[in-house]
């Protein structure tokens, strides 16, 4: 049979090794394993935080102690020992870099391998990068140019020092520490992250981007991102993630809060490529993230776009609270699970204001022994007059060992609401493949083309560089698969 050859090729493609799996040896300032009030005090002291923030962390910690880890997601993993994690690890400072030239060349090399050459990108692509390396931000570019517009784009710890009033006003107002188990944990121990503030009427002149990377062994990464767009402001924020290859499972519990006031627009794009574990499910990142946007003002717009190809386990529901009248929420997602990856992801759209609109577009791809779950909630509050939601979630199955689940919930409490949900599950058809191959494409090109076509609606929402990266990522893990 002719198909034997492509089938073997698929296997080699499916088995492709994690290309960002290298480790940077750096001297790190690391706390011993374990979590207690003392550890939190040390983290807070190391970062020179004001008193209110320490109190806030401690309160979150006490709250966390009373909570239990959620079990409802369709993912399967051994219980996590939270005392076996290092909660703080920072590259050792040699006087602290004042400009890019002073940054540890080892670090820069890492970014280069990842494809984020700081200065290259900064100059050529015009992207300001706030690179987070194991919890502490090492270099922030383009701050000056952004500063001229009154935009604040810096690491979270810097913002705590320079703009404590903004932190105090907004931190935890979208995702309160009591929100869920992992949000409480994050609130207690978060080490760094990004802070963006776009003042009234300013359209951010460039796309802002952060690269997160887990490097040191046994560390959990707990970033905290806060983006505030004042009246009439707009910003597009990109986030990319990779982690080196390791045998143990590592925990990543981030919290992202977005706040959009009247007429503001925030677009948040993620390409998540944390280490997924090897093909037998050994190692990999546990990605338990709480992301939520609050359309506080009228006519505000928050849009989430995510491409999730990495992590052993993903547990992530970027949500939008549509509080302001005429506000809009979007969720575009491609989630891929191959080998033994498990993804339980989706969104919540909470319609509270009048004439609020939301669109959910989710594309799940399961291959190998992967399991992919879409879990969503659309809630129309009694006062959300004229609310509108459209949800489309499609699953593509590649191979007969994988699983695809769809668990949407609709709660409509206003008669003027229009809520629609559509979902389909299918595999790549033999006839589609045959047609493409008959036109001279190889099996892997054909599958790649079909998968990319399947995800096109989401990819076109991504900024240019990310779209290319996302297509490449999908290609790496899936090209040539035959259903």
């Amino acid at each position, binding site marked *: 049979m002719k198909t034997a050859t492509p089938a073997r090729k698929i296997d080699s493609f499916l088995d492709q090794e994690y290309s960002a799996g290298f480790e940077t040896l750096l001297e790190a300032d690391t706390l011993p394993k374990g979590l207690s009030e003392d550890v939190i005090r040390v983290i807070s002291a190391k970062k020179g935080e004001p008193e209110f923030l320490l109190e806030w962390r401690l309160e979150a910690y006490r709250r966390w102690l009373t909570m239990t880890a959620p079990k*409802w997601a369709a993912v399967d993993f051994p219980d996590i020992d939270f005392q076996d994690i290092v909660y703080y690890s920072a590259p050792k400072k040699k006087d602290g870099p004042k400009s890019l030239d002073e940054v540890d060349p080892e670090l820069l090399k890492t970014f280069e391998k990842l494809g984020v050459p700081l200065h290259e990108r900064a100059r050529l692509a015009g992207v300001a990068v706030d690179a987070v390396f194991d919890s502490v931000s090492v270099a922030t570019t383009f701050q000056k140019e952004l500063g001229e517009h009154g935009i604040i784009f810096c690491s979270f710890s810097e913002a705590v020092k320079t703009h404590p009033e903004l932190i105090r006003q907004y931190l935890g107002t979208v995702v309160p520490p009591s929100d869920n188990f992992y949000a409480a944990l994050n609130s207690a121990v978060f080490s760094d992250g990004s802070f963006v503030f776009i003042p009234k009427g300013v359209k951010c002149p460039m796309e802002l981007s952060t690269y997160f990377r887990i490097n040191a062994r046994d560390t959990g990464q707990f970033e905290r991102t806060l983006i505030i767009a004042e009246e009439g402001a707009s910003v597009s924020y990109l986030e990319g993630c990779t982690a080196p290859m390791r045998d143990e499972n590592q925990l990543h519990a981030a919290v992202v809060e977005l706040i959009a006031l009247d007429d503001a627009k925030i677009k948040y794009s993620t390409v998540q490529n944390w280490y997924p574990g090897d093909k037998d499910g050994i190692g990999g990142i546990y990605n338990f993230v709480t992301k939520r946007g609050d359309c506080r003002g009228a006519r505000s717009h928050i849009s989430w776009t995510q491409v999730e190809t990495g992590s052993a386990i993903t547990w992530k529901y970027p949500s939008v609270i549509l509080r302001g009248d005429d506000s809009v929420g979007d969720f575009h997602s491609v989630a891929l699970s191959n080998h033994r990856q498990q993804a339980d992801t989706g969104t919540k759209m909470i319609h509270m204001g009048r004439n609020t609109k939301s669109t959910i577009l989710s594309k799940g791809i399961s291959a190998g022994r992967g399991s992919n779950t879409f879990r969503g909630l659309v809630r*129309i509050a*009694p006062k959300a007059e004229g609310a509108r939601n459209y949800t489309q979630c499609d*699953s593509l*199955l*590649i*191979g*007969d*060992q*994988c*699983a*695809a*689940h*769809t*668990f*949407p*919930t*609709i*709660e*409509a*409490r*206003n*008669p*003027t*609401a*229009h*809520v*629609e*949900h*559509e*979902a*389909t*599950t*299918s*595999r790549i058809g033999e006839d589609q493949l045959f047609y493409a191959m008959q036109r001279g494409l190889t099996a892997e090109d054909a599958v790649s083309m079909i998968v990319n076509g399947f995800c096109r609606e989401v990819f076109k929402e991504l900024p240019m560089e990310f779209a290319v990266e996302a297509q490449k990522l999908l290609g790496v893990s899936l090209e040539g698969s035959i*259903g």
Partner: protein
Amino acid sequence: MSAVDTWVSAFHARSAQQPGATLPWLADLRRQAIYRFADEGWPTRRHPRWQHTSLAFMDQQDFAANAVAPDAAAALARLRGDDAGHWLVFVGGRFNAELSDIGALPAGVQLTSLADALDQHPEAVQAAFGSATDGDSPAALNLALATDGAWLRLPLGVALEAPVHLVFITNATDASQHLRNLIVAEANSEATIVEHYLGEGEATTLTTAATRLQVDADARITHLKLQQEAEPAIHLASINATQARGAHFASHSLSFGARLARNDIHTRFDGEGCDTLLNGLYHLDGRRHVDHHTSINHAQPRGNSREFYRGLLDGNSRGVFTGRIIVAKDAQRSDAMQRCDNLLLSRAAEADARPELEIYADDVKCAHGATVGQMDEDSLFYLQTRGLDDAHARRLLTYAFAAEALDRIALLPLRKQARAALMARLPGGELLEELL
């Protein structure tokens, strides 16, 4: 009071008088079931299958029999008209031989009350009875307390031409009734079974009902449930079917009465090439709450399932639908389609829908859709341009929305009965009759 203890003591008080009380297996089973219920209690929102319907209030709920019993004979006459068919009537949870009219049956068909069947064929009943671990705690309570129900056994290749009607009417002495219906359809047999739940009065009564259907190879069973209990009643029911190779099962659930009604409807494909239709319609007003929790388990390849639920929600009512489709590993070539549509007729009504797909095979065609919306202004306008006033136009559109569910009922006399039940509920039903 309906606290768990009350039920446990009711169980002990009654157990000696229960039908089949002398059968050791049954006594064991009932004991296991009541222990399970005592252990788990009424489900609350914390239970994953009861997130939108909490029964926590049941601990404080008082049940009472209606002061005046509905006139069972008159109600039956209204319902039956001049239909021949096979009619089994249960009043207050017990078989009433006087009102019943089982009629002539083909050779080998067993159609009796469950109490009689326990006397006559205890082994066959045992095989079909179900276990104490089935369903959630209300199902266990039903197993422990069920006083009667219907027993239908169709032998190989026999088709019952006329539908079997099971009528359940509340009485003036019992505050609760617990019914268990067992249906065994052997290979190639065919039948239609209709369950009517009737009640009137001001008292809060409780009905628990369980219907179990075993549909053997290539058998064809249609099940229709018309729930028209009194306004204050609470109705907790389950329908469980298993289908062997090539079996066809259709379930129509029409829920028009009761203050709180919960229907758990599950079917599992145990053989290849099964076919299922789950069809449902609910109309709610006031503060009423109806929850349909369905699942279709494509455990074997080449199964085909179609599911359609429609809700009309008025007043402060709440309609809940959960539909789960499971396609097991290796259940290739499964084809599943599911829809849930809700029409919100008032400002305060709420519709919750959870269409769920759980898929472990790759060569499948699965789709689901759910909508919640209000009446289409363009359609209203169109009807008004044709000379209908606003009220008539609204009623007509409401009826049209519901009629789609009725049209899926293949047997015409049953469709008419269902339609009459709907008309009796819709405001301005008489006006509609003129129009249609």
